[in-house]
């Protein structure tokens, strides 16, 4: 491949991963912005999305597509239960939430280890085609992933900005006290937001399941990157998270043209670290530092 082809290829690949990261980061940010929870278990929700999709693929024809629908729904439901049952006492106290959600992560991981086993498993891409451009053949399913990610993000935006629930979520993120005073059902909003965030993570996991090996630890790497993206994008800023996610992905892809992918990741993260030094509040974060505003 010549340089232009390489750039296009790796850049596109990076963008697709960036979109997945953005999905993860959006869920994380939503949960933090509204509930004040730093959700370390987010990686486990991603993993559950992948594992459930694998099971559905294994058990049923068209299983993958069912997985894409059911895995986020089921994990979202789990999120509801966890918010109500486990997390409510520690909401608003970020340090405690780290500890509690870390415990959840361990429980969920080892639960899956018990049931699913320790060996990574694969499922095939549900659609096999390549798209030719610039003399390259790019695997078609990845483009489907990109498309579906964008659709999910657009749907999220619509929910947040064009629906009453979205209005309530944003209001609660701005000020819980005022929202309560105005009569909003804040406990329900918390419940649904956490479930929504978990569902987004599971969707990301379901989408990537055919691209990676599904295993009980598959959420670990993505989680760290998602946190980085959330901080760099601006804690509480959804637009920032999406932007930072895509930026990280694309940068990593472009650097891969000249460096090994491992080094490319180091360089991309360093670049993001540099961005954070220049704008400590994050790319699109608010300087006023309340950190609770969800856009």
């Amino acid at each position, binding site marked *: 491949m010549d340089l232009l082809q390489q750039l296009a290829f790796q850049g596109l690949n990076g963008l697709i991963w960036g979109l997945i990261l953005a999905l993860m980061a959006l869920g994380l940010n939503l949960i933090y912005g509204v509930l004040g929870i730093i959700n370390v278990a987010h990686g486990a929700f991603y993993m559950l999305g992948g594992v459930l999709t694998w099971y559905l693929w294994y058990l049923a024809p068209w299983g993958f597509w069912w997985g894409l629908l059911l895995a986020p729904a089921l994990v979202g439901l789990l999120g509801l239960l966890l918010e109500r049952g486990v997390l409510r006492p520690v909401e608003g106290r970020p340090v405690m939430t780290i500890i509690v959600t870390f415990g959840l992560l361990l429980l969920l991981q080892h639960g899956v280890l*018990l049931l699913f086993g320790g060996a*990574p498993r694969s499922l095939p891409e549900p659609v096999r085609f390549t798209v030719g451009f610039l003399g390259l053949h790019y695997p078609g399913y990845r483009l489907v992933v990109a498309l579906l990610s964008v659709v999910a993000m657009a749907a999220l935006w619509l929910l947040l900005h064009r629906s009453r629930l979205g209005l309530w979520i944003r209001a609660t993120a701005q000020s819980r006290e005022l929202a309560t005073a105005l009569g909003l059902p804040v406990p329900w909003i918390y419940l649904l937001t956490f479930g929504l965030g978990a569902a987004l993570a599971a969707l990301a996991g379901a989408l990537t399941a055919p691209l990676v*090996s599904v*295993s009980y630890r598959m959420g670990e790497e993505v989680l760290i990157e998602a946190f980085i993206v959330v901080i760099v994008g601006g804690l509480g800023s959804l637009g920032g998270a999406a932007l930072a996610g895509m930026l990280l992905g694309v940068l990593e892809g472009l650097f891969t043209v000249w460096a090994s992918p491992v080094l490319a990741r180091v360089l991309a993260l360093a670049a993001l670290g540099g961005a954070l030094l220049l704008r400590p509040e994050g790319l699109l974060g608010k300087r006023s530092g309340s950190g609770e505003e969800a856009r």
Partner: protein
Amino acid sequence: MLYNARVKGMGMKMKMGMEMEMKKLTRREFLKALVGAGAGLALGLGVPLRAGAHARAGAAAETIRIGHQVDLSGALAIYGYWQDRALRAAVAELGEIAGRPIELYTEDTASSPATGAARLRKLIQQDRVDFVIGSQHSGVCKASLPIAKELQTIYFPLGEATELTSKWGNRYSFKVNHTVRSHVQVSYRWAVENLGKRWTIVVADYAFGRSHAAEWPPRIAEEGGEVLSTIAIPLEATDFVPYLAKIDVKNTDVLLYVFPGGSVVRFIEQAASLGILERVNLFGVICSIDGIDTETIPALEGSWYVSNHPRLHEEVPEKLREYDAHLRRAVGVDERGHELGGPRTVTGSHYWYAWEALHLLKRAVEECGWRSKEDNPVLIETLEGLAAEAGYGFPQGALFIRAQDHQGFHDHYIERVEGGKLRVKLHFPKEEAVYPPEVDYTKGA
């Protein structure tokens, strides 16, 4: 003043009230925390993690304790699964060593050097095992070898990096299975002559893969070939496309891939989807597809492997078939290499390691009259240079342990995927696998 006194009085009452409040809460919360911690502890201890599955054959003081440091989860889980089964089958069959019942202690490395090393310590120091059969993961082996030496416990690393019996080895380690150097040595001439002169090498980026990355290029150059590039991929990598895109497909004749574990399916499929496999000769060490059902991956058709033992029973040399059948029966594998009553494919080239290691250990212990770890020096001398003929204990074939570096040598094969099945094309006797030793443990160390 009165007013002040009253306020002060109220203040004091309030303060006392609050303190009592606080005390009440503190005690209640303390009790809650205690119950919670107790429940958590019970849950933690009760949850049967993969590790710590102990098979005790009657915990009498006379038993011989064998530790198995095995990769039951993580990247090399498929290898660990079969090593575990094979060792359990060997323990079940032998039952005793020198009249003493065998107790097996199993710990999961999680395919991680840090975890594996910690579990080794646990096996030796807490479970007080007499011998350890080690991990398949060369990185775990590397981390474990110094510990085996420190704790003076004989250790059988099942990894394959050449350095395990040179730079990193010591008197306490014995390897029944080949090193990377043997694999390279038996096959490089054939490969350059028959597959092509221009190579791209893709390896898993850890001890085992790096051993390959070091061993192949000089040998290929010897035969007049050249290595265009070496690409290292982390063992836990999930998306291979960024790495695959770096292969110079136009100029590559041979794509050598050394990538053990379940992720290789993903690697192959992604390579196929990028059109790479149609244009190169795919050559690997068997570690890249052992445990993988070749019939379900059309992209593997026509690929070549240097292997240690045929996966199909019908491909096993005539004189070994009886022993091979016995091993399969004992471990629960059918003639095609599929798990009986399960979905897995056997790691046919690897799963005999643990089986033969135990049989070799039994022979050595019984020969020298070993009774406790104090007799280790004598046992070590017995193992050095020990040779075994093909038999039920050694179904892979004749084996010998070289005295200087405690390295085992055995036969190898070249196999090719044809019609989805691995077919033997060449058979190399163990003498061809021998290379000069780099160390001499007989002189100490």
